């Protein structure tokens, strides 16, 4: 299984250049059965990452461009009366795929957003009174533009909470950018990608991730981190138990990818910012510079501050 993970990582890395950490995080989110939100400026490779991820994992995949006039039925699907057969026939929307790429989700109206997010949570959709199971594994990758862009509807906190992670790709460094510019046939490369693992294997890996050992002190560490976010006075959005759960799952996936069957505090720390920052109500992008550079590397980030306050060796 570890070989498969390595293969996946290297395959994605060959397309999305110079972003190993982000790729790892995205994969961790998949392995932990969580949905992923990628927030960045246009043209940073959000969509590419989502596509490569879906293809490499060998999952059915459909991309939906969210626009302000997109309706819920466009996402979920619609029942249309079939004249020939004299019955209603379901025209499945893009959500009936294993990987759904919701591009620029914050450009759609709240109604449409919530239709997607409901499906994410329930793993099923109801159309005209009939309930349809979504395929498994089911995985939503949403991208969004920074909120200061025109024509965006910010996702409400309750819906942000449904995403296990929010990551941001950021600008590539010089070497990576050189490679990107020299590469002429990126489209061909993308279409020529083959799946590294089968669906069954993926499900197996997901089960193995679930089985990663979390000792009591890790649980305590997670609790301590959540409690700090609740104690701080200026924090409008403290971390919920669901956040704690997501944190633990993501850390398990991270540990698994690190070839360990137990979680270390370092795993928690590695995924903490991605898992928790959007739940804490932070933008994630440095609005002062408006450049799209990662803010969570900076010392001022609230999530980082929370990490610094807890000693993982004796958390409580």
């Amino acid at each position: 299984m570890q070989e498969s993970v390595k293969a996946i990582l290297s395959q994605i890395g060959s397309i999305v250049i110079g972003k190993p950490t982000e790729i790892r995080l995205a994969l961790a989110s998949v392995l932990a059965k969580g949905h992923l939100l990628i927030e960045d400026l246009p043209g940073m490779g959000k969509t590419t990452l989502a596509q490569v991820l879906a293809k490499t994992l060998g999952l059915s995949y459909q991309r939906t461009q969210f626009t302000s006039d997109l309706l819920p039925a466009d996402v979920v699907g619609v029942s249309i009366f079939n004249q020939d057969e004299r019955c209603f026939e379901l025209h499945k929307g893009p959500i009936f795929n294993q990987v759904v790429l919701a591009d620029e989700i914050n450009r759609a109206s709240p109604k449409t957003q919530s239709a997607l997010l409901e499906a994410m949570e329930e793993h099923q959709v109801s159309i005209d009174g009939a309930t349809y199971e979504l395929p498994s594994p089911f995985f939503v990758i949403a991208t969004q533009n920074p909120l200061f862009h025109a024509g965006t509807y910010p996702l409400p906190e309750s819906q942000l909470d449904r995403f296990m992670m929010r990551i941001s790709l950021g600008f590539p460094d010089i070497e990576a950018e050189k490679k990107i510019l020299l590469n002429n046939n990126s489209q061909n490369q993308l279409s020529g990608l083959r799946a590294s693992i089968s669906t069954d294997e993926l499900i197996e890996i997901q089960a193995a991730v679930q089985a990663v050992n979390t000792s009591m002190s890790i649980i305590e560490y997670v609790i301590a981190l959540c409690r700090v976010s609740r104690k701080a006075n200026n924090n409008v959005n403290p971390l919920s138990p669901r956040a704690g759960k997501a944190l633990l799952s993501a850390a398990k996936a991270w540990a698994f990818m690190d070839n360990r069957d137990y979680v270390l505090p370092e795993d928690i720390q590695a995924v903490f910012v991605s898992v928790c920052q959007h739940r804490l109500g932070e933008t994630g992008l440095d609005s002062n510079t408006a450049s799209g550079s990662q803010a969570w590397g900076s010392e001022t980030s609230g999530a980082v501050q929370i990490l610094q306050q807890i000693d993982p060796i004796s958390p409580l």
Partner: protein
Amino acid sequence: MAAPELIVTPKFTLPAQLSWLLIFIQVFNVGLLYFELSLWVIAVIVLCLLWRLLVVLDEKYQPSHWTIVIIALAGCVMLLVSSKQLGLLSTMLHLLCLAYGLKTLELKSRKDFYQLSLLGFFVLTSSLIFYQSLYFSFLLSILLIINVTALLMYFTGKTSILTLFKTASKLMMQSLPLAIVLFVVFPKLAPLWHVPAAKSSTTGISNSVKIGDIANLALSDALAFRVEFDNNAPDANQLYWRTLVLESFDGATWEQSLAQKQIKKILLGSNKQRVFTFEDVDSQGANTQVKNNQAKNSQAFSYQGISYQAFSYQGISYQAFNYQVIAEPSFQHWLFALDIAQVDNTRQIMSLPDYTLFSRQVLSQTVSYKVTSYQQPLLDNITNKQETLLNQHLKNNKVRNLEFPAESNPRLTKQGQLLRQEFPDKRQLIQAVLNNYRQKPFRYTLQPPPLINNSLDQFYFETQAGFCEYYASSFTYLMRAAGIPARMVVGYLGGEYNPRGKYYGIYQRDAHAWSEVWLDSIGWVRIDPTAAVHPARVEGGLPNDLLQQQSLLSGNFLSLYRLRQFALINNLRLQFQAIDYQWTRWVIGYTAKNQFKLLSGWFGNLRPYKIALLVAFTFVSIMFLLWLVNRERLKIAPKPVWLVLYFQALVLIAKKGLEKPKGMGIWEFSKLFSRWFSERFSDPKEGEFSSVVQSFAIVSKIVISIEYQKLSEQEHQQALLNLRAEMTNFKQEIKKLKFNKSFKV
């Protein structure tokens, strides 16, 4: 059928070092009580400790349960048999020590260790019942710290006695403020038992004096009492500390007469009927004396000296001295004072008709009392007319003091009769006898030639060498033979002034005996025949030649007093004594009465309910404080051993200059340590120290595996063992690190 489940409880063993330390502690804890314990108890304890020694060396010598029970039972029976002789307190002490000795053979569980430690503290502190000097307290504190060290060693698992001792000292220091507060505030309850006059420890002057007794006493450098004068002190040659008046002589021994004893009994018994309250005795005594004195002219034998603080009554002034006496425990009843002593406001001390002070209770601990002495001639101190018996004794007073066994010393008797014929005037007679002492070759010495049957004749006419009691005794005898009422007074003369403590220290070597004769017109007049023989003794304490004798005889060659001519040693000696004096005065002398006075000063008139409230309040607030301090700590479960070890490693690293950032995990920190280390030691010569990095990496790895991995019980134990081993290695490695300053980042 299922096999019975095998339950294996781990065997309780103490580390070897702790076992040795415990034996050491036991030896000393009991050793302090050596003089208070019966020999057989000490023998049993020594046996137990030796046995324990064997057990420590090899466990197969562990005595069986029944052996211990038998020894314990035998000890109890022995105690029961001897309990009458020992008294309650001593029996209890013996029992405690016996239990302490036996418990050492029964160290089978943690509980036993606790009991042994607790018993140790009890045994150790119980020696304070008997000794309270500063030096002893110092010794005791050190032993106390060592006792705590043993406890620390048990709980921390460390073996370095020196570091533990330091920690224990620190702990003791930290607890000191609370101890002081408790010492000052906590009610001093009366002991539940009567502290007995311990069997051998009566010290100082005894109630009968034979020839040679005082010379023996003078061999001791022990402190008898200390005196601090309020303003001025009398001249050194006037420091006659009256202690005991002996009226009855049987030819060899001077004793208190039957009458004296009876008066004492009456006075002791009369307390309840208030016939003879102390105030009555004191005030009336003083008044009548003054009245009597006014009527009589007492110029001839009055005390010389300039009047500083004068006591004036109807035109005649007498010098008055106010002073405080702090008497060491002598396990006797008598106290010390200058003539004529009046004691203020204490019901515990009474003045006897012979002007001595008498304590109702045996001086089992340091006693302090205030005295005012009026230097006036001594009249009989009996005033209460209702007490017919006393009056009768008063009348018999002169008769009593003329009695002597005439046949015991025929030559002296004859000499007395001759003198009587020769000098009709008593004063001339006395002067003649004193002149005789002066002119004949009498010698003042601690090593007089032996006398047959304590014969005064032999001393007076043949050997003519002796200590003060020889002279006082022969003089008194001669006076009685010559028809002058005379009596023997025993006490102390002089004293050493300590300029640092501003007090006089009076030691057993200052013990002295002198005479008093009755002159009708004046009263009792002190005559010190020693002054005639050896005036220097009266002026300045024991002269050097006698001190040499003293140290030779007592075997006390290192007596600091002997070395007083060396300024440095003398200064040191005086300084120590001054400290000891303050200790005695403020710490030992802080009795229930003083406490009451002090607390009254703070809180106003003290009522029982106020005290109860105060105590309750103190108790509650201390408990509250403890709760407050420990509240947070109580919530947190104690750290598991592997984390404790890991934190030790962190502390060691922090000492070298790298602290773990708070939010950093174990694995990250081990990497950081390695980076930090290689940055600091870029020099290849330092490369050998990379074993520290390796060692710490191993430590980190093991801790991680224990803390985060799922381990079976066996793996867990193995990991713990590995961790301990690696920690020892790591400690050694990091100790080797010597940071070269040039490598500082």
